[in-house]
Protein backbone atom coordinates (compact mmCIF):
# COMPACT_ATOMS: atom_id res chain seq x y z
CA UNK A 1 0.00 0.00 0.00
CA UNK A 2 1.36 3.43 -0.91
CA UNK A 3 2.24 5.76 1.93
CA UNK A 4 -0.43 8.31 1.10
CA UNK A 5 -3.09 5.59 0.87
CA UNK A 6 -1.90 4.24 4.22
CA UNK A 7 -2.19 7.64 5.84
CA UNK A 8 -5.64 8.11 4.33
CA UNK A 9 -6.70 4.77 5.78
CA UNK A 10 -5.30 5.63 9.20
CA UNK A 11 -7.12 8.95 9.23
CA UNK A 12 -10.33 7.32 8.03
CA UNK A 13 -10.27 4.80 10.85
CA UNK A 14 -9.34 7.41 13.45
CA UNK A 15 -12.00 9.71 12.06
CA UNK A 16 -14.61 6.96 12.25
CA UNK A 17 -13.79 6.23 15.89
CA UNK A 18 -13.83 9.89 16.87
CA UNK A 19 -17.05 10.51 14.95
CA UNK A 20 -18.74 7.61 16.77
CA UNK A 21 -17.53 9.01 20.07
CA UNK A 22 -18.59 12.53 19.17
CA UNK A 23 -22.19 11.41 18.66
CA UNK A 24 -22.74 10.37 22.24
CA UNK A 25 -19.66 11.74 23.98
CA UNK A 26 -20.38 9.24 26.75
CA UNK A 27 -16.88 7.84 27.11
CA UNK A 28 -15.35 11.28 26.78
CA UNK A 29 -17.57 12.91 29.36
CA UNK A 30 -17.13 10.00 31.74
CA UNK A 31 -13.35 10.05 31.38
CA UNK A 32 -13.25 13.79 31.91
CA UNK A 33 -15.40 13.69 35.03
CA UNK A 34 -13.34 10.75 36.26
CA UNK A 35 -10.15 12.78 35.78
CA UNK A 36 -11.59 15.73 37.68
CA UNK A 37 -12.70 13.47 40.51
CA UNK A 38 -9.31 11.77 40.77
CA UNK A 39 -7.53 15.12 40.74
CA UNK A 40 -9.79 16.40 43.49
CA UNK A 41 -9.56 13.27 45.61
CA UNK A 42 -5.78 13.29 45.41
CA UNK A 43 -5.83 16.88 46.55
CA UNK A 44 -7.72 16.05 49.71
CA UNK A 45 -6.02 12.69 50.24
CA UNK A 46 -3.05 14.14 52.08
CA UNK A 47 -2.27 15.87 55.32
CA UNK A 48 -2.35 19.45 54.06
CA UNK A 49 -0.35 20.72 57.05
CA UNK A 50 2.57 18.48 56.09
CA UNK A 51 2.37 18.04 52.33
CA UNK A 52 2.03 21.24 50.33
CA UNK A 53 -0.09 21.34 47.20
CA UNK A 54 3.03 22.03 45.16
CA UNK A 55 4.71 18.88 46.48
CA UNK A 56 1.71 16.71 45.78
CA UNK A 57 0.98 18.28 42.40
CA UNK A 58 3.24 16.43 39.93
CA UNK A 59 2.27 13.00 41.23
CA UNK A 60 -1.40 13.88 41.38
CA UNK A 61 -1.35 15.18 37.82
CA UNK A 62 0.28 12.07 36.39
CA UNK A 63 -1.83 9.61 38.37
CA UNK A 64 -4.87 11.44 37.05
CA UNK A 65 -3.62 11.30 33.47
CA UNK A 66 -2.75 7.63 33.83
CA UNK A 67 -6.17 6.64 35.14
CA UNK A 68 -8.01 8.79 32.62
CA UNK A 69 -5.95 7.30 29.79
CA UNK A 70 -6.66 3.74 30.91
CA UNK A 71 -10.37 4.40 31.20
CA UNK A 72 -10.44 6.16 27.85
CA UNK A 73 -8.49 3.53 25.92
CA UNK A 74 -10.83 0.69 26.81
CA UNK A 75 -13.35 1.89 24.27
CA UNK A 76 -11.12 1.56 21.24
CA UNK A 77 -11.59 -2.14 20.55
CA UNK A 78 -14.83 -2.45 22.45
CA UNK A 79 -16.32 -0.56 19.51
CA UNK A 80 -15.28 -3.31 17.12
CA UNK A 81 -16.92 -6.14 19.05
CA UNK A 82 -20.40 -5.12 17.97
CA UNK A 83 -21.52 -6.99 14.87
CA UNK A 84 -17.98 -8.37 14.58
CA UNK A 85 -16.92 -5.07 13.11
CA UNK A 86 -13.24 -5.89 13.42
CA UNK A 87 -13.58 -8.69 10.89
CA UNK A 88 -15.18 -6.22 8.54
CA UNK A 89 -12.23 -3.91 8.96
CA UNK A 90 -9.82 -6.76 8.32
CA UNK A 91 -11.58 -7.56 5.03
CA UNK A 92 -10.72 -4.13 3.70
CA UNK A 93 -7.47 -3.54 1.81
CA UNK A 94 -6.14 -1.67 4.84
CA UNK A 95 -3.21 -3.57 6.34
CA UNK A 96 -3.59 -4.52 10.03
CA UNK A 97 -0.86 -2.03 10.92
CA UNK A 98 -3.04 0.65 9.40
CA UNK A 99 -6.03 -0.38 11.52
CA UNK A 100 -3.85 -0.34 14.61
CA UNK A 101 -2.29 3.06 13.87
CA UNK A 102 -5.76 4.43 13.18
CA UNK A 103 -6.91 3.22 16.59
CA UNK A 104 -3.79 4.68 18.21
CA UNK A 105 -4.41 8.06 16.56
CA UNK A 106 -8.01 8.05 17.78
CA UNK A 107 -6.87 7.14 21.30
CA UNK A 108 -4.17 9.83 21.21
CA UNK A 109 -6.75 12.44 20.27
CA UNK A 110 -9.11 11.22 22.98
CA UNK A 111 -6.51 11.10 25.74
CA UNK A 112 -4.94 14.40 24.68
CA UNK A 113 -8.32 16.10 24.82
CA UNK A 114 -8.90 14.89 28.37
CA UNK A 115 -5.42 15.97 29.43
CA UNK A 116 -5.79 19.42 27.90
CA UNK A 117 -9.13 19.96 29.58
CA UNK A 118 -7.74 18.79 32.92
CA UNK A 119 -4.82 21.23 32.87
CA UNK A 120 -6.73 24.44 33.72
CA UNK A 121 -8.44 22.62 36.60
CA UNK A 122 -5.07 21.36 37.78
CA UNK A 123 -3.66 24.88 37.79
CA UNK A 124 -6.65 26.20 39.67
CA UNK A 125 -7.04 23.38 42.22
CA UNK A 126 -3.37 23.09 43.08
CA UNK A 127 -2.59 26.77 42.60
CA UNK A 128 0.62 26.03 40.72
CA UNK A 129 2.71 28.61 38.79
CA UNK A 130 2.22 26.99 35.44
CA UNK A 131 0.95 29.54 32.93
CA UNK A 132 4.40 30.71 31.88
CA UNK A 133 5.75 27.18 31.65
CA UNK A 134 2.77 25.72 29.84
CA UNK A 135 4.54 24.96 26.53
CA UNK A 136 7.14 22.92 28.40
CA UNK A 137 4.51 20.98 30.29
CA UNK A 138 2.69 20.31 27.05
CA UNK A 139 5.91 18.93 25.59
CA UNK A 140 6.30 16.50 28.48
CA UNK A 141 2.63 15.56 28.23
CA UNK A 142 3.07 14.81 24.55
CA UNK A 143 6.06 12.56 25.21
CA UNK A 144 4.31 10.69 28.01
CA UNK A 145 1.01 10.32 26.14
CA UNK A 146 2.88 8.82 23.20
CA UNK A 147 4.29 6.35 25.73
CA UNK A 148 0.92 5.41 27.25
CA UNK A 149 -1.26 5.11 24.21
CA UNK A 150 0.34 2.62 21.77
CA UNK A 151 0.93 -0.05 24.40
CA UNK A 152 -2.47 0.67 25.94
CA UNK A 153 -4.15 0.28 22.55
CA UNK A 154 -2.36 -3.01 21.88
CA UNK A 155 -3.24 -4.44 25.27
CA UNK A 156 -6.78 -3.17 24.87
CA UNK A 157 -7.09 -5.18 21.66
CA UNK A 158 -6.15 -8.32 23.57
CA UNK A 159 -8.17 -7.95 26.75
CA UNK A 160 -11.36 -6.91 24.98
CA UNK A 161 -12.00 -10.59 24.33
CA UNK A 162 -11.58 -11.62 27.94
CA UNK A 163 -14.16 -11.43 30.68
CA UNK A 164 -12.64 -8.88 33.01
CA UNK A 165 -11.32 -6.45 30.44
CA UNK A 166 -11.74 -3.34 32.60
CA UNK A 167 -9.58 -4.90 35.29
CA UNK A 168 -7.13 -6.76 33.12
CA UNK A 169 -6.31 -3.78 30.94
CA UNK A 170 -4.90 -1.68 33.77
CA UNK A 171 -3.33 -4.76 35.40
CA UNK A 172 -1.29 -5.44 32.28
CA UNK A 173 -0.66 -1.83 31.30
CA UNK A 174 0.54 -0.26 34.54
CA UNK A 175 4.00 -1.90 34.64
CA UNK A 176 4.62 -0.45 31.17
CA UNK A 177 3.79 2.99 32.44
CA UNK A 178 6.40 2.95 35.19
CA UNK A 179 9.34 4.43 33.24
CA UNK A 180 7.29 7.16 31.53
CA UNK A 181 5.49 8.09 34.75
CA UNK A 182 8.76 8.33 36.71
CA UNK A 183 10.25 10.51 33.98
CA UNK A 184 7.16 12.65 33.54
CA UNK A 185 6.80 13.30 37.27
CA UNK A 186 10.48 14.22 37.63
CA UNK A 187 10.32 16.69 34.77
CA UNK A 188 6.95 18.12 35.86
CA UNK A 189 8.28 18.64 39.38
CA UNK A 190 11.22 20.47 37.86
CA UNK A 191 8.96 22.65 35.74
CA UNK A 192 6.83 23.54 38.76
CA UNK A 193 9.96 24.41 40.77
CA UNK A 194 11.15 26.76 38.09
CA UNK A 195 13.99 24.63 36.75
CA UNK A 196 14.66 24.75 32.99
CA UNK A 197 13.91 21.77 30.77
CA UNK A 198 17.58 21.62 29.84
CA UNK A 199 18.25 20.16 33.28
CA UNK A 200 16.20 17.13 32.31
CA UNK A 201 17.63 16.12 28.96
CA UNK A 202 18.32 12.63 30.33
CA UNK A 203 14.73 11.96 31.31
CA UNK A 204 13.39 13.56 28.16
CA UNK A 205 15.69 11.40 26.02
CA UNK A 206 14.56 8.33 27.92
CA UNK A 207 10.92 9.23 27.31
CA UNK A 208 11.63 9.86 23.65
CA UNK A 209 13.44 6.56 23.24
CA UNK A 210 10.66 4.74 25.09
CA UNK A 211 8.12 6.24 22.71
CA UNK A 212 10.12 5.22 19.66
CA UNK A 213 10.67 1.66 20.85
CA UNK A 214 7.13 0.99 22.01
CA UNK A 215 5.34 2.60 19.10
CA UNK A 216 7.41 0.42 16.77
CA UNK A 217 7.07 -2.76 18.81
CA UNK A 218 3.32 -2.26 19.29
CA UNK A 219 2.72 -1.80 15.57
CA UNK A 220 4.77 -4.92 14.80
CA UNK A 221 3.00 -7.01 17.45
CA UNK A 222 -0.57 -6.10 16.48
CA UNK A 223 -0.53 -8.54 13.62
CA UNK A 224 0.20 -11.38 16.04
CA UNK A 225 -2.96 -10.93 18.04
CA UNK A 226 -5.41 -11.05 15.17
CA UNK A 227 -7.33 -14.28 14.62
CA UNK A 228 -6.58 -15.77 11.29
Amino acid at each position, binding site marked *: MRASAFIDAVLAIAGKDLAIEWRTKTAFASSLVFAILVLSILFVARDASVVSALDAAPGALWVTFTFAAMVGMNRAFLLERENRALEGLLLTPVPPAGIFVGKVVANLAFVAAIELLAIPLFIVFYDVPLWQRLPELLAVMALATFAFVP*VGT*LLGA*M*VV*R*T*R*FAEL*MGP*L*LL*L*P*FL*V*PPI*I*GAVQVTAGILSGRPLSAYT*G*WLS*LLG*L*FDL*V*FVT*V*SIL*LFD*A*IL*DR
Partner: protein
Amino acid sequence: MTERAIPQLARRGTVIAMLGLAGLAAVYVRALMFTPIERVQGPAQKIFYLHAPAAWSGLIAFLVTGLFSLLYLIMKDRRLDRLAAASAEVGLAFGVVMLTTGPIWGKPIWGTWWTWDARLTSTLFIFLLFVGYFVLRNAVTDPDTRAAYSSVIGVLALALVPFIHVSVYWFRTLHPTPVVLKPDEPSLPSVMLVTLLASFLVFTVLYVGFTMQRYALAALRDAELEDALDVSG
Protein backbone atom coordinates in the same frame (compact mmCIF):
# COMPACT_ATOMS: atom_id res chain seq x y z
CA MET B 1 6.35 -34.93 21.86
CA THR B 2 6.35 -38.74 21.60
CA GLU B 3 4.73 -40.97 24.22
CA ARG B 4 8.00 -41.72 25.97
CA ALA B 5 9.60 -38.31 25.63
CA ILE B 6 7.38 -36.51 28.12
CA PRO B 7 7.92 -38.83 31.11
CA GLN B 8 11.62 -38.98 30.25
CA LEU B 9 11.86 -35.19 30.32
CA ALA B 10 9.97 -35.11 33.60
CA ARG B 11 12.32 -37.67 35.12
CA ARG B 12 15.41 -35.82 33.98
CA GLY B 13 13.98 -32.59 35.27
CA THR B 14 13.32 -34.20 38.63
CA VAL B 15 16.88 -35.52 38.81
CA ILE B 16 18.32 -32.11 38.02
CA ALA B 17 16.02 -30.42 40.51
CA MET B 18 17.04 -32.94 43.18
CA LEU B 19 20.69 -32.24 42.45
CA GLY B 20 19.91 -28.57 42.80
CA LEU B 21 18.19 -29.09 46.13
CA ALA B 22 21.15 -31.10 47.39
CA GLY B 23 23.40 -28.29 46.25
CA LEU B 24 21.15 -25.84 48.05
CA ALA B 25 21.57 -27.78 51.29
CA ALA B 26 25.33 -27.65 50.76
CA VAL B 27 25.16 -23.90 50.19
CA TYR B 28 23.21 -23.49 53.42
CA VAL B 29 25.88 -25.43 55.31
CA ARG B 30 28.71 -23.48 53.73
CA ALA B 31 27.05 -20.11 54.16
CA LEU B 32 26.06 -20.65 57.77
CA MET B 33 29.09 -22.54 59.07
CA PHE B 34 32.06 -21.97 56.80
CA THR B 35 31.64 -18.38 55.65
CA PRO B 36 32.63 -15.57 58.00
CA ILE B 37 30.10 -13.14 59.38
CA GLU B 38 30.14 -9.80 57.63
CA ARG B 39 31.56 -7.01 59.75
CA VAL B 40 28.96 -4.30 59.29
CA GLN B 41 25.73 -6.19 58.70
CA GLY B 42 26.26 -9.19 60.97
CA PRO B 43 24.56 -12.57 60.48
CA ALA B 44 21.64 -11.03 58.58
CA GLN B 45 23.96 -10.51 55.63
CA LYS B 46 23.89 -14.26 54.95
CA ILE B 47 20.43 -13.95 53.40
CA PHE B 48 22.39 -12.38 50.52
CA TYR B 49 23.50 -15.90 49.49
CA LEU B 50 19.86 -16.74 48.76
CA HIS B 51 18.48 -13.37 47.78
CA ALA B 52 20.91 -12.46 45.01
CA PRO B 53 20.91 -15.91 43.33
CA ALA B 54 17.10 -16.03 43.49
CA ALA B 55 17.04 -12.67 41.75
CA TRP B 56 19.51 -14.03 39.20
CA SER B 57 17.35 -17.11 38.50
CA GLY B 58 14.30 -14.93 38.24
CA LEU B 59 16.10 -12.78 35.72
CA ILE B 60 17.19 -15.76 33.60
CA ALA B 61 13.66 -17.12 33.75
CA PHE B 62 12.14 -13.88 32.52
CA LEU B 63 14.73 -13.46 29.77
CA VAL B 64 14.02 -17.01 28.59
CA THR B 65 10.30 -16.23 28.60
CA GLY B 66 10.86 -13.08 26.59
CA LEU B 67 13.17 -14.77 24.12
CA PHE B 68 10.94 -17.79 23.55
CA SER B 69 7.90 -15.55 23.28
CA LEU B 70 9.68 -13.77 20.44
CA LEU B 71 10.63 -17.09 18.84
CA TYR B 72 7.02 -18.27 19.08
CA LEU B 73 5.82 -15.18 17.27
CA ILE B 74 8.28 -15.89 14.47
CA MET B 75 7.97 -19.67 14.22
CA LYS B 76 4.49 -20.32 15.67
CA ASP B 77 5.58 -23.60 17.27
CA ARG B 78 3.44 -24.08 20.38
CA ARG B 79 6.27 -25.84 22.17
CA LEU B 80 8.08 -22.51 22.29
CA ASP B 81 5.12 -20.93 24.04
CA ARG B 82 4.99 -23.88 26.41
CA LEU B 83 8.61 -23.32 27.38
CA ALA B 84 8.05 -19.59 27.78
CA ALA B 85 5.15 -20.24 30.14
CA ALA B 86 7.05 -22.90 32.10
CA SER B 87 9.98 -20.55 32.51
CA ALA B 88 7.69 -17.70 33.57
CA GLU B 89 6.09 -19.82 36.27
CA VAL B 90 9.46 -20.87 37.66
CA GLY B 91 10.55 -17.24 37.46
CA LEU B 92 7.52 -16.22 39.48
CA ALA B 93 8.47 -18.73 42.17
CA PHE B 94 12.02 -17.37 42.35
CA GLY B 95 10.55 -13.88 42.29
CA VAL B 96 8.56 -14.68 45.41
CA VAL B 97 11.75 -15.95 47.07
CA MET B 98 13.52 -12.74 46.10
CA LEU B 99 10.70 -10.47 47.25
CA THR B 100 10.42 -12.21 50.61
CA THR B 101 14.12 -12.65 51.39
CA GLY B 102 14.69 -9.03 50.43
CA PRO B 103 12.52 -7.49 53.15
CA ILE B 104 13.70 -10.08 55.68
CA TRP B 105 17.23 -8.90 54.96
CA GLY B 106 16.19 -5.29 54.79
CA LYS B 107 14.48 -5.03 58.15
CA PRO B 108 17.56 -5.54 60.35
CA ILE B 109 19.87 -3.70 57.93
CA TRP B 110 17.80 -0.74 56.74
CA GLY B 111 15.35 -0.69 59.63
CA THR B 112 12.40 -1.05 57.31
CA TRP B 113 10.67 -3.95 55.52
CA TRP B 114 10.25 -2.10 52.29
CA THR B 115 11.40 1.10 50.66
CA TRP B 116 10.09 2.48 47.45
CA ASP B 117 13.53 2.94 46.02
CA ALA B 118 13.72 2.33 42.33
CA ARG B 119 15.18 -1.17 42.24
CA LEU B 120 12.62 -2.67 44.61
CA THR B 121 9.90 -0.80 42.81
CA SER B 122 11.09 -2.00 39.39
CA THR B 123 11.42 -5.59 40.53
CA LEU B 124 7.97 -5.49 42.03
CA PHE B 125 6.51 -4.11 38.82
CA ILE B 126 8.24 -6.71 36.66
CA PHE B 127 6.98 -9.39 39.04
CA LEU B 128 3.44 -8.02 38.79
CA LEU B 129 3.81 -7.91 35.02
CA PHE B 130 4.42 -11.63 35.01
CA VAL B 131 1.51 -12.20 37.35
CA GLY B 132 -0.47 -10.36 34.69
CA TYR B 133 1.02 -12.73 32.07
CA PHE B 134 -0.60 -15.63 33.91
CA VAL B 135 -3.85 -13.81 34.59
CA LEU B 136 -4.14 -13.22 30.85
CA ARG B 137 -3.18 -16.81 30.04
CA ASN B 138 -5.85 -18.14 32.35
CA ALA B 139 -8.46 -15.83 30.88
CA VAL B 140 -8.02 -17.16 27.36
CA THR B 141 -9.23 -20.66 26.54
CA ASP B 142 -8.16 -21.16 22.94
CA PRO B 143 -4.55 -22.45 23.00
CA ASP B 144 -3.41 -20.60 19.88
CA THR B 145 -4.89 -17.29 21.02
CA ARG B 146 -3.42 -17.85 24.47
CA ALA B 147 0.01 -18.52 23.02
CA ALA B 148 -0.19 -15.44 20.79
CA TYR B 149 -1.34 -13.12 23.58
CA SER B 150 1.21 -14.46 26.08
CA SER B 151 3.99 -14.07 23.55
CA VAL B 152 3.00 -10.48 22.89
CA ILE B 153 3.22 -9.72 26.61
CA GLY B 154 6.52 -11.61 26.79
CA VAL B 155 8.07 -9.58 23.98
CA LEU B 156 6.72 -6.30 25.37
CA ALA B 157 8.19 -7.19 28.75
CA LEU B 158 11.56 -7.92 27.10
CA ALA B 159 11.52 -4.44 25.58
CA LEU B 160 10.48 -2.91 28.90
CA VAL B 161 13.19 -4.33 31.14
CA PRO B 162 16.09 -2.11 29.94
CA PHE B 163 13.96 0.99 30.51
CA ILE B 164 13.12 -0.13 33.99
CA HIS B 165 16.81 -0.81 34.59
CA VAL B 166 17.83 2.69 33.51
CA SER B 167 15.12 4.28 35.65
CA VAL B 168 16.75 2.53 38.59
CA TYR B 169 20.05 4.35 38.24
CA TRP B 170 18.47 7.76 37.79
CA PHE B 171 16.10 7.59 40.68
CA ARG B 172 17.27 7.96 44.31
CA THR B 173 18.08 4.57 45.68
CA LEU B 174 18.74 2.88 49.02
CA HIS B 175 19.57 -0.49 47.48
CA PRO B 176 23.17 -1.65 48.06
CA THR B 177 25.30 -0.74 45.11
CA PRO B 178 26.46 -3.75 43.11
CA VAL B 179 29.36 -5.52 44.77
CA VAL B 180 30.05 -8.21 42.18
CA LEU B 181 28.86 -7.15 38.73
CA LYS B 182 30.57 -3.83 38.39
CA PRO B 183 33.49 -2.64 36.25
CA ASP B 184 36.30 -2.95 38.79
CA GLU B 185 37.04 -6.06 40.84
CA PRO B 186 34.37 -7.53 43.09
CA SER B 187 34.65 -6.05 46.58
CA LEU B 188 33.65 -9.26 48.29
CA PRO B 189 36.40 -11.23 50.05
CA SER B 190 37.11 -14.44 48.16
CA VAL B 191 35.64 -16.86 50.73
CA MET B 192 32.29 -15.06 50.55
CA LEU B 193 32.58 -14.78 46.79
CA VAL B 194 32.97 -18.55 46.46
CA THR B 195 29.85 -19.15 48.56
CA LEU B 196 27.94 -16.65 46.47
CA LEU B 197 29.06 -18.07 43.15
CA ALA B 198 28.28 -21.60 44.34
CA SER B 199 24.81 -20.40 45.23
CA PHE B 200 24.39 -18.81 41.81
CA LEU B 201 25.28 -22.15 40.24
CA VAL B 202 22.86 -24.04 42.48
CA PHE B 203 20.01 -21.67 41.69
CA THR B 204 20.72 -21.97 37.98
CA VAL B 205 20.55 -25.77 38.27
CA LEU B 206 17.29 -25.45 40.22
CA TYR B 207 15.89 -23.20 37.51
CA VAL B 208 16.74 -25.71 34.79
CA GLY B 209 15.31 -28.67 36.72
CA PHE B 210 12.08 -26.93 37.69
CA THR B 211 11.54 -25.57 34.19
CA MET B 212 12.02 -29.03 32.66
CA GLN B 213 9.49 -30.49 35.08
CA ARG B 214 7.02 -27.71 34.45
CA TYR B 215 7.43 -28.03 30.69
CA ALA B 216 6.84 -31.78 30.88
CA LEU B 217 3.68 -31.19 32.90
CA ALA B 218 2.39 -28.70 30.34
CA ALA B 219 3.24 -31.08 27.49
CA LEU B 220 1.39 -33.89 29.25
CA ARG B 221 -1.67 -31.71 29.80
CA ASP B 222 -1.71 -30.59 26.17
CA ALA B 223 -1.33 -34.20 24.99
CA GLU B 224 -4.25 -35.33 27.18
CA LEU B 225 -6.36 -32.45 25.94
CA GLU B 226 -5.66 -33.38 22.34
CA ASP B 227 -6.47 -37.04 23.05
CA ALA B 228 -9.75 -36.00 24.65
CA LEU B 229 -10.61 -33.87 21.62
CA ASP B 230 -9.69 -36.71 19.24
CA VAL B 231 -11.96 -39.10 21.12
CA SER B 232 -14.91 -36.72 21.25
CA GLY B 233 -14.36 -35.21 17.77
